């Protein structure tokens, strides 16, 4: 017979951790996506020469492990006496990390829209902005969506690293329970299941949107 010391309160504790994971992910992906769109547009419009400093900065965020970025970001805000709580620091660092990847996704998406299609739009008298809004954005979104879904799922799992700044998200909550109850396999199984439960709808949403758009392609 299977016995466990896990109580409903412990499950509630895990759920609260999952809530924190979702919160950090939502803020970081939202801010990172907005920044990624802005940076992606700058990279496309300004060309490789003028956007070289931005490209270099984003390469740093893509190349340095997230854990190091979180620790350095926390140290930096402390040195600069910004007084940010761990949640803010975590979201800022994760947003920049997300933006670095999202920039490339956006750039690739815009690049995938055939120049001839954009030229047809401009030939009808559309402005650059109208071309971007009504032609490029919908087409680039379709191309970018699978990568963006992958990025979101990746950030959700990477957000576990914010535990190093003291935030009690899902993995940290699991660790606390493991230490107290000494049932690592069972608790990590539950933790993994919760990660799956919150990731699965996002993955399916991507699949649904791809399928919905594909008949028109």
């Amino acid at each position, binding site marked *: 017979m299977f016995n466990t010391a896990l109580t409903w309160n412990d499950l509630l504790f895990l759920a609260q951790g999952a809530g924190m994971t979702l919160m950090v992910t939502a803020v970081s992906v939202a801010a990172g996506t907005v920044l990624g769109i802005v940076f992606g547009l700058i990279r496309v419009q300004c060309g490789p020469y003028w956007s070289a400093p931005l490209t270099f900065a984003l390469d740093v965020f893509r190349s340095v492990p997230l854990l190091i970025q979180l620790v350095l970001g926390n140290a930096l805000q402390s040195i600069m006496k910004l007084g940010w709580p761990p949640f803010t620091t975590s979201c800022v660092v994760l947003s920049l990390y997300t933006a670095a990847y999202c920039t490339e996704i956006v750039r690739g998406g815009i690049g995938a829209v055939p120049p001839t299609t954009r030229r047809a739009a401009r*030939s*009808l*008298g559309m402005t650059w902005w109208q071309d971007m809004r009504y032609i490029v954005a919908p087409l680039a979104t379709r191309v970018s969506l699978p990568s963006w879904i992958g990025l979101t799922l990746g950030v959700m799992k990477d957000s576990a690293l914010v535990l190093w700044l003291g935030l009690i998200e899902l993995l940290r909550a699991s660790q606390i329970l493991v230490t107290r109850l000494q049932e690592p396999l069972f608790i990590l199984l539950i933790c993994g299941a919760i990660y799956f439960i919150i990731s699965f709808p996002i993955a399916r949403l991507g699949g649904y949107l791809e399928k919905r758009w594909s008949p028109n392609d």
Partner: protein
Amino acid sequence: MIEIENVHKSFGELKVLKGIDLTVSKGEVLTVIGGSGSGKSTLLTCINGLEPIDSGRIVVDGTDVHARGTDLNKLRRKIGIVFQQWNAFPHLTVLENVMLAPRKVLGLSKAEAEETAVKQLTHVGLAEKLSVYPSRMSGGQQQRMAIARALAMSPEYMLFDEVTSALDPMLVGEVLDTLRMLASEGMTMICVTHEMKFAREVSDRVAFFHQGIMAEIAAPEQLFDAPQHPETKKFLAATH
């Protein structure tokens, strides 16, 4: 009126247009023929400002297309262009493809834009395809949709850039019929084409381009039956 004065255009080292002089009057149908790389298509994209020119002038109804301060977006409303590749907007239905620019550029209401779009799509024989996505149509139908899309802006001039070149021979006829219809309605048109029979039939004048220069321009009967320039003769002999 479209006035082209001593227009030069290069892509890097490659000189594509070497001093083109040409005037197209209102209501005229001018056909441009010539070999690949002769500068025909480049001239069309220069006329509506999609490509800048190196020197010379292109004036449309008194507006210098390439002058500083010219509102190209406004100018393009009166110069429709249809390309070899129809460039449908794949995420929009046929009706939406045609409605988009009238709504967003001309500021028509949805009902007005729809009325215009339906009228133009009916005009080109696509009244049954309003809610279809472009990917579900043949190349000829997509090309006719592209023509309707340009016509929905009520342009005063239409530029056609080898609009039948990418089509299956079976589909060429339906697009040429649409162009014939427009010509008969008095639309001012510049057609770059390899369809000699069509050029002879609908044109007021035919221009022959060779290596960036306009080697010859004449009425179709004269150019096709008694070409003067040796390169025109060679080209026509090769196409017969």
